[in-house]
């Protein structure tokens, strides 16, 4: 029983990371009907840049905010340079190739400069674990679900209640119609990618004290976050976060009761089965393609 609680707690935390990453994919997909496959690297930048800036002597909050701002800028640049020119025709797929390639370049150049090993990000919330029953969890790990929930609520508020958010939904719904009411769809898309970049970096920064910040930390997490977004149906913020958390918990249960080696084999199989059963995703609706 204690073990199960432990798995649930760590699963909640790991799953929140997937949820946060999936939220970023959702934000990008909504605006562009394309995503940035370097996205795992935005997550990595959140951790790695914060560590590097702190090593240079900046205090934690300044380092973290700078890293998040840098990732937002990177997200915007990637949209402008590697997504937009390759997403002009409907059903274009060039952006897949370009963003995957750029992701590999970012990871390789980070490995070359930062080194291949992970470094700890010191956090007062990752020193003494909390004891819950017989299980232990760092307060830092509990920050992740809190962040996932707060960001989901913030995004929902943004999409429903703000002019900019409604404009983003309008672009998502029909780019031509959005242009005809005076919305600069290109600018809104750029903004969505910047938002997503910041979101990914925030997740990376929050999780770095627990997993260590390394050049390769984003690759698998980015992929799983994308999977989660697809399984959820990439249609609403709540859905992707819920699926992310559930997937994290499932992983920890498999790890605990079977083995770490079995985790991804079973986890991915589960994802594939779900996609077979729900081609539109668990919370998705039929995607209507506009020409």
């Amino acid at each position, binding site marked *: 029983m204690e073990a199960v609680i432990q798995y649930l707690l760590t699963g909640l935390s790991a799953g929140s990371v997937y949820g946060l990453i999936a939220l970023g994919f959702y934000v990008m997909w909504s605006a562009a009907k394309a995503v940035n496959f370097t996205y795992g690297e935005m997550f990595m930048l959140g951790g790695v840049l914060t560590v590097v800036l702190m090593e240079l002597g900046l205090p934690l909050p300044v380092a973290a905010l700078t890293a998040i701002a840098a990732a937002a800028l990177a997200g915007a640049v990637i949209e402008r340079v590697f997504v937009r020119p390759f997403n002009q025709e409907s059903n274009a797929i060039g952006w897949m190739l370009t963003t995957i390639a750029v992701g590999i370049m970012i990871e390789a150049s980070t490995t070359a400069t930062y080194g291949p090993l992970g470094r700890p990000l010191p956090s007062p919330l990752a020193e003494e674990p909390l004891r819950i029953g017989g299980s232990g969890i760092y307060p830092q790990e509990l920050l992740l679900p809190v962040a996932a929930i707060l960001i989901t609520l913030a995004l929902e508020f943004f999409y429903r209640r703000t*002019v900019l958010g*409604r*404009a983003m*939904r*309008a672009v998502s*719904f*029909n780019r*031509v*119609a*959005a*242009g*005809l*009411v*005076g*919305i*600069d*769809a290109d600018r809104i898309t750029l903004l969505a990618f910047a938002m997503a970049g910041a979101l990914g970096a925030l997740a990376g920064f929050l999780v770095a004290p627990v997993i260590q910040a390394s050049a390769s930390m984003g690759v698998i997490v980015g992929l799983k976050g994308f999977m989660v977004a697809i399984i959820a149906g990439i249609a609403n913020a709540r859905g992707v976060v819920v699926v992310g958390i559930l997937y994290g918990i499932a992983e920890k249960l498999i790890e605990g009761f079977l083995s770490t080696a079995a985790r991804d084999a079973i986890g991915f199989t589960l994802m594939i089965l779900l996609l077979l059963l729900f081609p539109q995703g668990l919370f998705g609706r039929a995607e209507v393609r506009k020409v």
Partner: protein
Amino acid sequence: MSQPILSLSAVRVAYGRIEAVRGVDLAVGRGAFVGIIGSNGAGKTSLMRAISGVVRPAGGTITFDGEDVTGRKSHEMVARGLAMVPEGRMVFSDQSVRDNLMLGAYTRIGRDDAGVADDLEKVLGLFPRLAERIDQVAGTLSGGEQQMLAIARGLLSRPKLLVIDELSLGLAPKILDLLFPVLTALNRDGLSILLVEQMASYALAVTERTYVMENGRVILEGASTDVAVDPRVLDAYLGRRGAA
């Protein structure tokens, strides 16, 4: 006569190698109510897409409000005072009627909030059915109500020229009898309107001037009353019945 609000000179629109519009000259005077009629595939919608900046013309010049706007994008055209009600209406069906209307005022929000509030009240006065359904999701509206919403949304940008592409598409005559008088009233209040319409009899009845398009070209233009009795129009578009 003062300078027209919109004038086109030798405008061409092409999709790849297919030329949909092959050199059109056209003018809409300030405060005028101009119609374009023609059969399906005549190039009317392509021409509207070029005027509103949805597609870049392959050639020719578009002048709006005294400035060359050829190749400007649609969001820039809205800011300059051209609103288009597109074919198929394209309301944001996942958002409420109110949010659709506010999106229509996108270029003015934060700059002219008082004016937007005034105009919102005005358009709801023009279309009371929208007022009744203000908090409904736009996708649940009937076709006619969606057309009202699309027009109202266009008006909220406070345009100098309102372009309407295929007003009647899929709408019952009863709804059209409701919509056309609103356009006439808007025009009487000084709004310039360019109406593209497949239902020639309706367009000829409300507009002052009419252009007839065929195969990407204007084949006839003139006062609507004259166009309505032109033998070619009678044959092709009015079936020799609807002459005024």
